[in-house]
């Protein structure tokens, strides 16, 4: 048997299936008697629904059923929930308006679900939807976070006066104010963290199905966490009890957070399947995804940094307004609070931090977690402040960072987090060497001769991953625990099935998880299969997001493997006729200490099942163990990214010419997969910084509703990345893993903007820094220069 060790850059097992077109995605699945759902969506951002006339539509060919919010209310189907309670400063709970799966009385954003048409074909469903007559009483809309709380602004939900869901804060306000009063220098920045549209390659899809014989429902859906979907659909929305509802998330083509949430569409499909007695299938087209998938980011922040005479940071304060969109999505409330403000210490020993966050409703698509979720926003605030402060006080940005780095661990920040380990100087030093920072001055002069403005920017980021200790998140308002489960089933021939509550939608679990088993049991990764994404197969699990599948999901597997090993030793002792205490297990072989007696893992597995060699009163037959693993802390991946960029003075086009990433993810299982995650993350971060702008008109129409106007990063927009690593093993889980899925997206935007501000000599560079935005800055500067002469 060939063992594939932890640390081997082995190719992904699952890729053969994907690249030969043999993947099974939700849209690939068809059920007998299947119907097609089409959602009639609101063309208005804000309107009262006066009347919906279905008479003509219901008579159209092929129509099976048409449902509206009235049908949902009549069936007592609950609304979508937000699973994380946040309290305002005065201790009152957040003010959330209802979130019905089909609009009831009012629509609140363009794309809001007015009715569902179920027909024999999708074309027939669309035809019938066109025949529905809706009488809208159009209301004024509010779109921008910064305008939502203004006097006289349109009210999105009556439950939330001034459109304010909560006004929350964290940290010691008085101590932070004192630090600012005593500061030698204060750096101030106004920051807009631009709204992004997640663009998973596979759009969302669902098939709801009802088995009348067993009165049971099955939902195939594009989910990152099918068990949580089942829990919410069952316990909160009232679709069916959990044992009567099976949720399957088959192959899923990317999520980036957007498939964590429980949406109206899949809920309608599974509810309607029982109601109309036929399987109901829905697949979003790309425009529906742009309009209705949960968007990301959208913060407006005033941030300040206090610095003393020695160049030490003494305080940070920030006031953020976070745009929640028209409804609170599943985890929306946690993103601009506990996933954001708790990271405002960055990699720095900052003694005083105070942050206020107002979450506001607007007439836009709901906003929730998107790759990084709060941590890219925090990193952007901290790293923009630090870079700007260093420039303002005339210190080298790297030296300023070094002076303020945390160097002793564990480190308690003023904003909840206890960093367990790290070596921030090591990653900065290595990145600076790889990026040849010393030679930058020469490269900048050479670029100037070609009419290019060259800049260099750092981002020394930190993130809290491996979400998370259940007790800790529970105390902060989470509605669920964030442990993970695993089951290891050893078959009689010694092959192994791993059942995991994690879900792979691009991360490569089928390979990395198999590597762990291979190295622990001494069997080939080809003899390990990973089972996930089906609530009828896996007992329970919390799913994949927040870079948690390695640190939490694999730790659960590791714990279950401990139990397998212990039981297998007992079996081996019987097979080898030795005392259990004398059995050693190494490289897939059980041996008896001090003898040459040995038996391999497969033989032990077989003996566990045939049970000829032991008394079932002493030892149960079989070899199957499970574990629920709850971590002791978050993990804290950190690192240093350096971006070098050139701006064409004539056109404003920015081109990244060099990218260096040095990350500390703790122990790494498969360096190739990890590097791929870093590449993808950087691409998304560069997308946010240079390309991806979500534009709504003042009356709430989404201008960037297709790839004609929403600019996704392409290979052409990216340089070849230089990726390095430093390692401080994580002490908070048995494998020493920190997680790598979000790092690139968290680090990259600040690195890009710090490079651009360096190149242009102004701190006022917006995201996305499009050619138009950069040219406008350059044109303004040259006008000012001419005026000064």
């Amino acid at each position, binding site marked *: 048997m060939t063992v594939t060790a932890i640390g081997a850059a082995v190719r992904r097992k699952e890729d053969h299936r994907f690249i030969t077109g043999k993947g099974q995605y939700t849209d690939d699945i068809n059920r007998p008697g299947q119907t097609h759902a089409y959602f009639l969506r609101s063309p208005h951002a804000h309107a009262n629904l006066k009347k919906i006339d279905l008479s003509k539509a219901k008579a159209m060919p092929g129509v099976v059923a048409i449902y509206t919010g009235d049908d949902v209310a009549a069936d007592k189907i609950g609304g979508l929930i937000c699973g994380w309670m946040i309290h305002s400063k005065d201790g009152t709970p957040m003010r959330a308006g209802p979130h019905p799966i089909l609009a009831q009385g009012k629509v609140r954003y363009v794309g809001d679900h007015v009715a569902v048409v179920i027909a024999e074909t999708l074309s027939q469903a*669309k035809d019938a939807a066109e025949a529905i007559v809706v009488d809208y009483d159009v209301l004024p809309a509010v779109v921008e976070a910064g305008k939502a709380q203004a006097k006289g602004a349109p009210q999105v939900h009556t439950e939330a006066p001034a459109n304010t869901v909560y006004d929350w804060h964290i940290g010691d306000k008085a101590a932070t104010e004192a630090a600012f009063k005593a500061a030698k220098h204060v750096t101030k920045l106004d920051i807009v963290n631009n709204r992004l549209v997640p663009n998973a390659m596979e759009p969302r899809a669902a098939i709801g199905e009802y088995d009348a014989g067993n009165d049971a429902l099955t939902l195939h859906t594009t989910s990152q966490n099918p068990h949580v979907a089942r829990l919410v659909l069952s316990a909160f929305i009232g679709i069916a009890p959990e044992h009567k509802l099976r949720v399957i998330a088959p192959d899923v083509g990317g999520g980036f957070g957007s498939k964590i949430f429980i949406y109206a569409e899949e809920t309608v499909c599974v509810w309607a399947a029982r109601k109309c007695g036929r399987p109901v299938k829905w697949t979003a087209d790309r425009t529906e995804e742009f309009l209705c998938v949960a968007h990301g980011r959208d913060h407006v922040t005033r941030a300040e940094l206090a610095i003393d005479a020695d160049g030490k940071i003494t305080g940070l304060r920030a006031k953020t307004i976070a745009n929640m969109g028209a409804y609170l999505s599943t985890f929306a409330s946690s993103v601009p609070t506990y996933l954001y403000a708790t990271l405002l210490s960055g990699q720095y020993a900052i003694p005083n931090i105070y942050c206020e966050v107002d979450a506001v409703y607007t007439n836009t698509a709901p906003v929730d977690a998107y790759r990084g979720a709060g941590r890219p926003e925090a990193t952007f605030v901290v790293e923009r402040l630090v870079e700007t402060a260093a420039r303002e006080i005339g210190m080298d940005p790297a030296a300023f960072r070094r002076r303020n780095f945390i160097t002793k661990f564990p480190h308690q920040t003023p904003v909840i987090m206890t960093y367990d380990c790290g070596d921030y100087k090591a990653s900065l030093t290595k990145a600076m060497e790889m990026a040849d920072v010393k030679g930058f001055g020469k490269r900048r002069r050479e670029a100037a001769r070609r009419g290019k403005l060259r800049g260099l920017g750092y981002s020394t980021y930190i993130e809290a991953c491996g979400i998370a200790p259940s007790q800790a998140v529970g105390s902060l308002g989470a509605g669920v625990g964030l442990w993970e489960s695993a089951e290891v089933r050893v078959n009689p021939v010694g092959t192994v099935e791993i059942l995991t509550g994690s879900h792979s939608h691009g991360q490569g679990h089928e390979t990395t998880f198999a590597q762990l088993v291979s190295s622990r049991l001494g069997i080939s990764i080809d003899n390990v299969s990973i089972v996930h994404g089906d609530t009828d197969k896996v007992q329970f699990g919390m799913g994949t997001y927040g870079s948690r599948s390695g640190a939490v999901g694999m730790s659960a597997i590791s714990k279950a493997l401990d139990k397998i090993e212990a039981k297998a030793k007992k079996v081996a002792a019987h097979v080898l006729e030795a005392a259990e205490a004398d059995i050693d297990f190494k490289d897939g072989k059980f041996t008896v200490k001090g003898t040459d007696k040995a038996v391999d893992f497969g033989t032990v597995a077989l003996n566990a099942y045939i049970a000829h060699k032991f008394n079932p009163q002493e030892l149960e037959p079989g070899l199957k163990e499970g574990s629920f693993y709850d971590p002791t802390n978050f993990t804290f991946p950190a690192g240093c990214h350096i971006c070098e960029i050139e701006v064409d003075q004539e056109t404003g086009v920015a081109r990244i010419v060099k990218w260096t990433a040095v990350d500390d993810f703790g122990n790494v299982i498969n360096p190739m997969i990890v590097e791929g995650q870093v590449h993808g993350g950087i691409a998304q971060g560069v997308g946010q910084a240079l390309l991806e702008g979500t534009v709504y008109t003042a009356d709430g129409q989404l201008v960037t509703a297709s790839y*004609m*106007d929403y600019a996704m990063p392409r290979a052409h927009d990216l340089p070849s990345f230089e990726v390095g690593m430093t390692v401080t093993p994580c002490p908070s889980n048995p494998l020493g893993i920190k997680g790598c899925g979000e790092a690139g997206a968290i680090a990259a935007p600040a690195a890009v903007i710090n490079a651009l501000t360096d190149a242009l000599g102004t701190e006022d560079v917006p995201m996305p820094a499009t*050619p*138009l935005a950069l040219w*406008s800055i350059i044109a303004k500067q040259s006008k000012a220069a001419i005026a000064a002469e």
Partner: protein
Amino acid sequence: MYPFKYQKAATVRGAVSLLKKAEEPKLLAGGHTLLPTMKQRLASPKTLIDLSAAGLSGIEQKGRSIVIGAMTTHAEVANSPVVQQAIPALAKLAGHIGDPQVRHRGTIGGSVANNDPAADYPAALMALGAVVHTSKRKIPAEEFFAGMFSTALDEDEIITKVAFPIPSKAAYVKFPNPASRYAIVGVFVAKKGSNVRVAVTGAGSNGVFRHEAMEQALAKRFNPKSLEGIATPAADMNGDIHASADYRAHLVGVIARRAVAAATA
């Protein structure tokens, strides 16, 4: 997409006859504008007349012109040794339209007939002084393009080929939209003897146009420096979230200089 009738024409004459008879017909060339519009239910022709078998593909040199059949794909133009030899700027232009899938379906006739204000080919036709051959007549490029999405074609008229006189120098430079990769500004410059033409696509509020001030300056001296100080009025430019009218007006100058530099390199 709404239901429609599909018909395949074997000849141009047959296609014209179908076009005259059929109910609410549309000609189908590469379909890369028409089909997405139909899928979004923004267009609903009752009949599609497929021109793929009407014998309209092919590239040949005829005297001092390159003649390209209307159904010739962008990829065929880009990869044609004849075009690459005679008008390399045209081959390069075709090689940068859309993506490989678009280039293997999209056709020169379809692009020209659609006259999208951000399409690349109209700039080439205008700058090279091309002549559009149809089922009825021959139309010089500047009479053919009639403002955005509008041409001189009659309802029952079909483009059969486009003839490009071979220039002595030519180049096309495109400043792409970061999202769609269509031209925000595309400038085609061509010199033939003492005659210089500068055609701009993507930028103008009424589609492709010739930049006469630039043409005059370049006719005196065909050099990027000749264009310095020539302003393009922003009032005539398009503006959108990607590029304001001012920015487009500025880019016309920058991209035109780069095109002249490329043509003289």
